[in-house]
């Protein structure tokens, strides 16, 4: 093929269109300064949003890290973090799992998907456990399960109430059956706490699904959730495939479950602290002056 033929072939070539990926509008301000609400698209000054418990005027509750939650909830300087449990890090020898854990540790600055400790809320002593969905989607493996079980055992020994914030996609796949057995491990610790006559409040935040929803998330003396949180046992897609019908938009939201009688209350983040304080007081919580 000579040069002339090549030119002709070039012009004869059918037109091709390059797909252009749609970009987010360019109003995203410098990272950190502004935060956009994914629900109503309003641009917040991050500082203002933080002062507003990270809740948008439209009612959207931004996800919180475990540290943010703890800071918002407990008395200043009162949080004493429990040491992490001693667990097998990769019980199934699952390929590349340790790397994934390491990366999440670097990214989030926490050791695993939960932070537990002792604290006071307006002087009332309590054991607080907070899951962090940034770490492996908050999934539960041996660390998360044993951290909860061990924190609850401490609470039983010290006769303290437990408040547990859930945020989890369910079982940690890479830990297989070791993960599933944490449902039993945590439930046993909670049952012993229950038999000691102590209060347990499960506080469900977005998302709480799978094995976490089917164990400690539903075992509180009081089970409450944050507005709009996704809570459910099976995934929406699996249910739609199984029953071959489309599910309503609000399916498996906190509000949906409240209506179905599966929750005690939906509590706005602004009321979180006062609600928990009241609950602990009503169940004989005592002020321990340090």
């Amino acid at each position, binding site marked *: 093929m000579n040069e002339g033929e090549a030119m002709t072939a070039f012009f004869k070539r059918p037109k091709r269109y390059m797909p252009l990926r749609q970009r987010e509008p360019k109003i995203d301000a410098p990272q950190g300064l502004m935060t956009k609400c994914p629900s109503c698209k309003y641009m917040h000054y991050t500082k203002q949003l933080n002062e507003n418990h990270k809740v948008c005027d439209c009612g959207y509750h931004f996800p919180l890290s475990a540290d943010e939650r703890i800071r918002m909830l407990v008395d200043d300087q009162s949080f004493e973090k429990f040491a992490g449990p001693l667990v097998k890090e990769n*019980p199934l020898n699952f390929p590349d799992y340790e790397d994934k854990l390491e990366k999440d540790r670097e990214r989030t600055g926490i050791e695993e998907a939960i932070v537990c400790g002792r604290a006071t809320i307006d002087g009332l002593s309590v054991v607080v456990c907070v899951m962090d969905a940034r770490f492996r989607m908050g999934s539960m493996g041996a660390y998360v399960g044993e951290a909860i079980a061990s924190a609850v055992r401490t609470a039983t020994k010290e006769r303290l109430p437990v408040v547990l914030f859930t945020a989890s996609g369910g079982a940690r796949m890479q830990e297989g059956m070791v993960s599933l057995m944490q449902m039993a491990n945590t*439930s*046993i610790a909670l049952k012993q706490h229950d038999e000691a006559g102590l209060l347990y409040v499960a506080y469900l935040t977005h998302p709480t699904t799978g094995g976490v929803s089917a164990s400690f998330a539903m075992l509180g003396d009081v089970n409450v959730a944050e507005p709009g949180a996704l809570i459910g*046992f099976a995934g929406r897609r699996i249910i739609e495939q*199984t029953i071959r019908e489309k599910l309503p938009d609000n399916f498996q939201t906190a509000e949906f479950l409240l209506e179905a009688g599966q929750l005690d209350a939906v509590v706005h983040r602004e009321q979180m602290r006062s609600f928990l304080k009241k609950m602990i007081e009503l169940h004989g919580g005592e002020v321990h002056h340090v």
Partner: protein
Amino acid sequence: MFDPIKEVNEQLGKLRETAETKGIDLSREMRHLEAKLHRLEKDIYGNIKPWDRVQLARNPKRPTTLDYIAQLFPDFIELHGDRHGYDDAAIIAGLATLDGTPVTIIGHQRGRNTKENMHRNFGMPHPEGYRKALRFMKQAEKFNRPVITFIDTKGAYPGKAAEERGQSEAIARNLFEMATLKVPIISIVIGEGGSGGALGIGVCDRLLMLENSTYSVISPEGAAALLWKDAKLAERAAETMKITAQDLLNLGIVDEVVTEVFGGAHIDVSLQSSLLKPVLAQHMMELRGRTQNELLQGRAAKYHQIGTIGS
């Protein structure tokens, strides 16, 4: 499906027939084929891969809870209902005796054909099934009767109504109550143990698994789709996820693996039951010798040691 064992068996049958009808001595050929059959069986069943066990566990002919009950507990009386308006056929419950002592029996129940499966919802319970199971556990506790549960489900039913009526809560409640149920609990995985739906009747003092049964947090297909975005890698997932009886024994999750009949439990349910019975009786005897405190401490320790170091 190509089945080399069946093929050699057929050849052997034909030879035998020829030898008999025509009066020819074919004993050498027959001995040769018999040896080949033996080798094949050893190759196929002796070298069985996790994925093969998944197929055996899912074999539609695999004995169900009621099949084992018929063999092990001839005096079984089935009892029904959750007392809140429902009787979930995916969970069966009742009373029987084991070596002369009363026991409560609870199990997932699959169907053995399409019609039965419609009735049994393929062995996938609704919340009411777990609440029915719980009623019989509490009854067992009242009368100081040990509980034996048969695990055989793909999972709790993932339906809209099941969610609305608290599938999560129903399973969680059972874990909570089984945690300190004051009687011995023995669970036996006889087919597929599917995640929370299996554990919902499976918090126990002793976990037994039939050799070719599986117990997993998610199906191999589901795991492959989730982890590697390709459901076709299910065979690999069956190995990586450690879901066979032997793998789970090694992980300290299962207490004893019950040997299966050569070729799988479906070959001979009566023989399979006679392999299961002494194992069950032995564990029951050991557990009955414990005080209530020992029993409950042992149960808590059993789940505590899974995944932890040096406890």
